[in-house]
């Protein structure tokens, strides 16, 4: 903002994007990949539910177990490769450090209180408040856990050391499920807020 005032309002094109191209591209690829993974994952879950409920067939992907597995093991490549690019660039470019750190617990509490009383400012969407930082760091970690626990379930012989790290095959299924639940919980809040603050959605599309 200070840079913008210094050079004057006429140079909008030169203004730094809130989200660089690599963030926007990986964000939307991830959006497609994660929806396919969740939808097909629900169908796979239904074949041997961990809890006394099923996901409705109408919101599950693949129509039956084999179809869901085909979707799941196709979209996994998209999710994993895109995720790897995103995390690598996020670390190398310094964006994660700049945007997401540090997170102070006191600030999280203060911002959460402000958000719940609708007093949290969304004036400058290029700067994340402490609650946003916490949620974004949290969902990146959940993403890492879901990929690793997924590998542990997929290859409990070849990658048995990883499976053991997740407490064995059966326990890794629960870890995978709860990582999904965490991501779905994040998505509910994330999508709702993007719709409440439409300029944040615009920034993820156009960069500004």
């Amino acid at each position, binding site marked *: 903002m200070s840079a913008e005032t210094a050079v004057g309002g006429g140079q909008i094109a030169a203004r730094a994007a809130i989200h660089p191209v690599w963030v926007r591209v990986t964000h939307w690829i991830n959006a497609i990949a994660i*929806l396919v993974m*969740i939808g097909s994952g629900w169908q796979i879950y239904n074949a*041997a539910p961990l809890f006394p409920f099923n996901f409705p067939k109408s*919101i599950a992907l693949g129509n039956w177990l*084999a179809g869901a597995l085909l979707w799941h093991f196709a979209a996994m490549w998209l999710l994993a490769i895109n995720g790897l690019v995103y995390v690598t660039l996020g670390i190398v470019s310094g964006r994660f450090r700049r945007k997401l750190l540090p997170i102070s617990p006191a600030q999280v509490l203060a911002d959460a209180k402000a958000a719940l009383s609708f007093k949290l400012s969304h004036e400058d969407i290029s700067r994340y408040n402490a609650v946003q930082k916490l949620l974004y760091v949290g969902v990146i970690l959940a993403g890492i856990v879901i990929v690793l626990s997924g590998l542990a379930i997929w*290859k*409990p012989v*070849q990658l048995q050391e990883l499976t053991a790290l997740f407490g064995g095959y059966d326990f890794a299924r629960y870890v995978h499920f709860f990582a999904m639940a965490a991501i779905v919980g994040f998505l509910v809040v994330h999508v709702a807020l993007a719709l409440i603050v439409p300029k944040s959605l615009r920034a993820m599309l156009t960069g500004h």
Partner: protein
Amino acid sequence: MRQRRIIPGVDPKLLIKDAASLMPDASRRGFLRGAASLGALTLLTGCDIIDGDTAEGVLRKISAFNDGAQAALFSPTKLAPTFPESAITRPFPFNAYYDEDEAPEVDGATYKLEVAGLVDNKKPWTLAELHALPEVSQITRHVCVEGWSAIGSWQGTPLSEFLTRIGADTRAKYVWFKCAEGYSNTIDMPTALHPQTQMTFKYDHKILPRAYGFPMKIRMPTKLGFKNPKYVVAMEVTNTDRGGYWENQGYNWFSGL
């Protein structure tokens, strides 16, 4: 739901569930057809952007790519974890696409294992001859494609030793198994030669009961349960992929663990 006859020692809950959940919707030929099939993607875009057959074709190509990726990841020497007797799942679930009372009843007295394809000695094997083969034992985890798992105890002879005994050409790509009820599947040679791949004649040190595949199953702790055929009556060493019952319907061919 109609009353099913349940054999002792088999979990009735799993018995009922297993037959139903693997099966496709009888009313639909392709498993990707219909508005509901594209689920979240349709919701996301608001329209059916992908034609069912096109999507199925692409997904099957990726599944074939995944066969290669899994073959590359497969270690011929890495052993599946083994467990103590106390870890065995009791009762061990019966699992098939039919009820247990519809399972094949093979007569052990007249049974002969047919051996075909790229082998020197195609003499069929009687059950007595098979039982005389050296016995090894394993307690390993059976992982079902549905997601559940169970730990079981199997005894028999290593398939690799049997292949050597019959003079099989182990440079061939596949071993194909045919089962009494018409079930079949094809496995890759590296898995056939894996030290834990077993021609199984006993479960928990007792002759295989009918539910678990009498007179012979092929136990592969490195593959999903459905790749472990029961009631095996013939095997063929071949360079042609003959597919399999579930594989032909869309389940991943390699299905390694």
